[in-house]
């Protein structure tokens, strides 16, 4: 990008420069897009064709039976449902806890606020590996291993919800104070102010928290791996690793079919709500 090529580029006609620009971007996008393509097309291929040389961008014949095998080899429909309902419950729980707590840290001047805040802050970025050993022992004591309870309770109450609390706090800080003062004159207590003024303004950050939390739960792998052993209780990420034949080799085309089915709804949602999803992630990164 030094001076010289810059000027040489300028000699080319404008449409051609533009063409080169978009071509470059498309080439750069290959590693981002090709895996999706390869995943989807491989799920229609036979085992033989998957390793055929030269590699084929389209399956020679479209084999739908891989998708059927995905459902018969494991209770895939059940596993799908498990992921869905766990992610929904976690999302609802985190929305409640994070909006309440985020609101208090942003708006209410209570005793010990800074102390509690710094304490929570310390677990903001905590990876689950740090606390997984005691949490596993606690769950074991409670008889909750091989149930979905650890996958629901720990993400809501543990460090997962701390991050979203900070997102909510960062939003609630920006509400002008006079709105609260007016409400106080009208005789509203803190609950009323939170419920009638705070929350209705917070639709965007609540949506962001919901999107991030749902995806985190939907995608989590370490926790199901450690807590679950019965395959009918598996969630999707764990289920996807279970398409292994009797010799321990992955059944690639079936695995890719199941993976496609697990990725598709998220991708469709992302494409439909693209702006919202990207903003949610940007919010979590910058303001978290």
């Amino acid at each position, binding site marked *: 990008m030094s001076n010289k090529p810059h000027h040489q580029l300028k000699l080319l006609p404008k449409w051609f420069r533009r063409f080169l620009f978009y071509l470059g971007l498309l080439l750069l996008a290959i590693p981002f897009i090709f895996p999706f393509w390869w995943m989807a097309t491989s799920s229609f291929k036979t085992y033989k064709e998957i390793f055929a040389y030269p590699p084929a961008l389209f399956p020679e014949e479209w084999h739908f039976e891989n998708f059927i095998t995905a459902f018969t080899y494991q209770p895939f429909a059940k596993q799908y449902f498990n992921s869905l309902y766990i992610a929904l419950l976690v999302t609802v729980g985190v929305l409640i806890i994070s909006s309440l707590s985020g609101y208090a840290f942003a708006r209410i001047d209570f005793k010990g606020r800074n102390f509690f805040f710094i304490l929570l802050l310390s677990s903001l970025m905590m990876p689950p590996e740090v606390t997984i050993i005691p949490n596993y022992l606690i769950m074991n004591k409670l008889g909750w291993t091989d149930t979905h309870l650890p996958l629901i309770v720990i993400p809501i109450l*543990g460090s997962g919800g701390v991050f979203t609390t900070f997102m909510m706090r960062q939003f609630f800080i920006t509400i002008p104070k006079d709105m609260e003062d007016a409400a106080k004159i009208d005789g509203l*207590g803190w609950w009323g102010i939170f419920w009638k003024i705070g929350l209705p303004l917070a639709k965007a950050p609540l949506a962001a928290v919901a999107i991030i939390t749902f995806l985190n739960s939907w995608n989590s792998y370490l926790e199901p791996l450690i807590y679950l052993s019965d395959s009918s209780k598996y969630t999707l990420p764990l289920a996807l690793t279970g398409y292994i034949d009797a010799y321990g080799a992955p059944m690639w085309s079936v695995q890719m079919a199941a993976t496609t089915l697990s990725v598709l709804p998220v991708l469709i949602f992302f494409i439909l709500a693209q702006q919202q999803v990207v903003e949610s992630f940007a919010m979590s990164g910058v303001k978290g």
Partner: protein
Amino acid sequence: MKHKSLSQSQQDNLAGHLFIAPQFIGFLLFVAIPIITVIVFSFQDRNLLTGKWEWIGLDNYTFMFTRDPYFYKVIGNSLVFSFGLIAMNVSLALFLALVLYRNIQGMVFFRTLFFSPVVTSTVAWVLVWSFMLQGEQGTINQFLKLVGVQGPKWLSSPEWAMFSVIFVRVIKNVGLNMVILISALKDVPHEMIEAAKVDGATTWQYIRKIIIPLIAPTILLVVIITLIGSMNVFDHIMLLTAGGPSNSTLVLSYYVYYQAFLTNEIGYASALAVVLFIVILGLTFLQWNMRKKWVYYEQ
């Protein structure tokens, strides 16, 4: 109203404590107590399966620092992973952001393309890549063969495994850093760029002299976020290489899991988790302080 009998500050205290109570109780049960427990366990010899344990003082730590044949390898690998990831991720994110932040045709489309791996589950993403990178006849090598190149064993040779893990991870997550940087670039005053152009600055000059310094706080923030995120790489390691080959991708978060749940040495695993905890805690407060500075800078 029943609250009328309380003074304003009493009301504030009551409401504040009630509002944070669910989260704080959860924090005590699933974060604070487990962390204290991990610290306590780190002074014990404790087995997951038998449940037998005894106090051994600092033995886990002396073993870790003086006798564990893997520990320094793990630390070295973790550093290589973190710094390799930051270098690749942040430079690619910055490049993409600089190309895509302007409102010209097609940019939203490309932003969507580069972001789509971010929303995809790590397991799905990693499974597809492990399929494409496997052995000598994986997809990538098949395509390389078409143009006459024999690709290496991406995941099963010690020279390439770490690079492959970093690459897969960068492509997965770079979109996140890209959108953070794009939102910072959009805040750069337009007049400054125009003024630079009038002064005859080349694209590279105004990027380097004007844009980069203006968004430097965000770049630093992105570096720290990526660094903290790089500690959390269990899924990638577990499903791409399981720490191999020849332990070349054995990193700290995976090593904690390995010691705890594969060899059942939860005493020693706890000592490793304490090390991980201290590193993350330090980085979190560093990030928090920088974020404050960054907010200050904005005003």
